C-alpha cells in the first residue's frame, strides 16, 4: 500500500514537471499559433544558462537565477528577431518548419558553446526528501508541482482575463484577423518566445535540480508532448489535470508493467496515450473546438 502511494505521489508530481515543460509549448502556441518543436532545446538553454550563472560564474543562486531568466528572455526575443519577424503573414507551415530548423540549430550552437560533456546541475532546492510517516517525497518535485500550479493559474488568468492576454489569444486564433484589428503579431510572437524561454528555464531548474546536464536533456521536450496534447494545445489550466493523468499512468506503468514486460513501457505509454487522444478527442480535454465555415 505504501509502495502504491509512493508511486502515485511520485507519478503525480513528475506529471506536474511534464506539465511545466509542456506549458512552454502551450504558451508559445497561445500567443503565436506556432507549434514549437524546439521546446526541448529551450529547456536545455535554460539549464545551461542557470548552470552558467550559478556554477560557472560563482554567483549566489538568488542573483544567478534571475540573471538566467533575463538571459533566457533575451534569447527568446533574439529568436523572434532573427527567425520570425520576417515570417509574419507567411504560412503557418513556414513558421513551424523554422522551429524544426531551430531544434537542430540550437543543439549545434549549444554544443559549440558549452561542449558535449556532462555537467553537474546546481542544487537549487535541497535534495533531502520530505518525510510524511512512511512516505518519502522529493522536495524539488514538491516545489516543482507548486510552481506548476501557480504558473498555470497565473498564466490562465493572464490569457483569459487581461487585455494583453486576450490580444495574444486573438493572434493564436488567426494572424490576419488579429492584424486587421490592430494587434501587433510581431510583438505577440516576441512575447510568446520570451515567456516560453523563461518558463523553460523554470522547467529546467525543477527538472534538472541536482542531476546532471548535457544537451541530451532536450528529450524532455518530446516527453512532455503527450501532456500538452491531452490538455489541448490551447489550455494552460488543463495542463495540471493532464499532467496528473499522464504522470500517474507513467508511474504505474513504471512500477507494475515494466518489470513484467522488460522495461521501456513507461517511456512509450504516454505516446500511445497521445495517439489515442488524437484519434478520439483531437482537441484534447480542454482545447478549442474550431468550427470551419466556408
Amino acid at each position, binding site marked *: 500500500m505504501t509502495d502504491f502511494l509512493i508511486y502515485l505521489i511520485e507519478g503525480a508530481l513528475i506529471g506536474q514537471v511534464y506539465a511545466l515543460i509542456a506549458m512552454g509549448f502551450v504558451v508559445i502556441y497561445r500567443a503565436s499559433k506556432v*507549434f514549437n*518543436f524546439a521546446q526541448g532545446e529551450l529547456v536545455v538553454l535554460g539549464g545551461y544558462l542557470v548552470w552558467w550563472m550559478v556554477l560557472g560564474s560563482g554567483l549566489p543562486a538568488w542573483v544567478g537565477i534571475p540573471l538566467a531568466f533575463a538571459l533566457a528572455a533575451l534569447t527568446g526575443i533574439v529568436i523572434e528577431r532573427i*527567425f520570425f519577424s*520576417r*515570417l509574419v503573414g*507567411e*504560412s*503557418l*507551415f*513556414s513558421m*513551424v*518548419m*523554422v522551429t*524544426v*530548423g*531551430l*531544434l*537542430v*540549430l*540550437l*543543439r*549545434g*550552437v549549444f*554544443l*559549440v558553446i558549452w*561542449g*558535449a560533456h556532462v555537467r553537474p546541475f546546481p542544487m537549487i532546492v535541497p535534495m533531502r526528501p520530505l518525510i510524511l510517516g512512511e512516505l518519502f517525497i522529493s522536495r524539488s518535485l514538491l516545489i516543482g508541482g507548486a510552481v506548476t500550479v501557480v504558473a498555470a493559474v497565473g498564466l490562465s488568468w493572464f490569457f483569459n482575463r487581461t487585455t494583453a492576454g486576450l490580444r495574444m489569444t486573438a493572434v493564436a486564433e488567426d494572424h490576419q484577423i488579429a492584424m486587421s484589428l490592430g494587434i501587433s503579431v510581431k510583438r505577440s510572437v516576441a512575447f510568446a518566445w520570451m515567456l516560453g524561454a523563461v518558463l523553460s528555464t523554470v522547467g529546467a531548474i525543477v527538472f534538472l535540480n541536482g542531476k546532471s546536464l548535457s544537451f541530451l536533456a532536450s528529450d524532455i521536450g*518530446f516527453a512532455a*508532448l503527450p501532456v500538452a*496534447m491531452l490538455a489541448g494545445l490551447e489550455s494552460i489550466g488543463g495542463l495540471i489535470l493532464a499532467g496528473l493523468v499522464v504522470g500517474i499512468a507513467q508511474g504505474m506503468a513504471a512500477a507494475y508493467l515494466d518489470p513484467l*514486460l*522488460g*522495461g*521501456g*513501457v513507461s*517511456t*512509450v505509454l504516454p*505516446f*500511445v496515450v*497521445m*495517439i489515442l487522444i*488524437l*484519434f*478520439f478527442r*483531437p482537441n484534447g480535454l480542454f482545447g478549442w473546438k474550431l468550427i*470551419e465555415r*466556408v
Partner: protein
Amino acid sequence: MAMLPSGVFAVRYAQDRALLRTRPQWVSLALFMLLLALLPHLVTPRLLAIANLMLVTAIVVVGLQITLGYAGQVNLGQSAFMGVGAYAAGVLSTKWSLPFLVTIPLGGVAAALFGFVFGLSAVRIKGFYLALTTIAAQFIFHFAVLNLPVSWLGGSNGISMHPARLGGIEFSTDVSIYYLFLVSCTLMVAGAFGMMRSRTGRAFIAVRDDDVAAGMTGIPVVRTKAMAFLVGAFYAGIGGGLYAYYIRFISVDQFNLFNSVWYLGMIIVGGTGSIVGALLGTFLIRAFQEVVTSIGPLLAELVPWLGGDIVFASMNILLGGLIAFFVIVEPDGLMHRWNILKASYRLWPFRY
C-alpha cells in the same frame, strides 16, 4: 507550372500528357542517364559510396516529397518508416531466407501499412496535430524494436544481413550495388512522376492547396491524406530495405528523428512540390554532409574543446541554419529559383 519554349504545341492528347515533350528534353535526359550509368568508371570508390547513399536517400526523400510537398501533410517520421522497411526486409531475408526481389517490396508494404495507420489519424485531425502522430511513430518504432523479443527483431543487437542476390549476381561490391540502386531509384522516381500526374496525384495537390475546397469538389479528403502517408511510407520502406542490403547491418539508431529532420531539410532546400527538387535537395545536402565530414579535423582545430563532436555540432548548425534560411528567404526552394531563371532566359530580352 513548367514553361515550354514557344512553338511547342500538343496536337494529340498523348503529346499533351507526355512528360518529355521536346527533343532537347529527351536528349538531356538520355545524356544524364548515360552519365549516371558510367559514373562507377568515372569517380573514385569513395565518391561512389557517397553516390550509393545519395541514391537510396533519394528514394526516401521522394517519398517524403509526395507526403509533404504534394499532399501537404507534415511528416516527421519518415526515418521510422524507413526503419520499418529495413527491419521487414532484414527479418524476411535472414529468418525466412526470401530472395531480395520479394523482401524489398514486402518491406515497402510493411512500411506503407505502418505509415497508413498514422495517416489514418487524418480522419480526425488536421494540420500540425498530424505531424505529432508521426513523432509518436518514431518513438513507438524505437520502443518496438528494442522491446520485442530479441529473436524477432534482434533488439539492441541489430540484424546482420547477407548481400542481395539476383540470379548468379551477388550485390556485395559498391559498383554492383550502385547499379542495383540506380535501377531501383529510376523506377521509383518514374513511378512518382507517373503518380503525381494521375488522378491520385492531382487529388494530393488539391488537398494540399485547400482541403475544404477539395472536399467540395468530391475528393475524399481523409482517404487522400491517408493515401499520401501510405505512398510516402512505401517509398521510405523501399529505401530502407535497399539501405539494409547495402549496409548489411540494421540497428535502431540508424533510423532516428534527426534523420527525419535531414530529409525534411532536403525537401525544403530542393523545393516543396517538385520531384526534381527532392532529388536536387538530396544531392546537395548529402554532398554538404560529406564536405563537413571531410573538413571535420580542420574544424576540430578551430574549436579545440569539442574534439570529435565538432562534426556533429557543425552538421546540426548547418542543417538548422539551412532549413531556417530557406524557409525565410526562399520558401519554394532551389527548384523555384531555377524555374524563374529558366523562364527569364526564355523570355530574354523581354521582361515578361
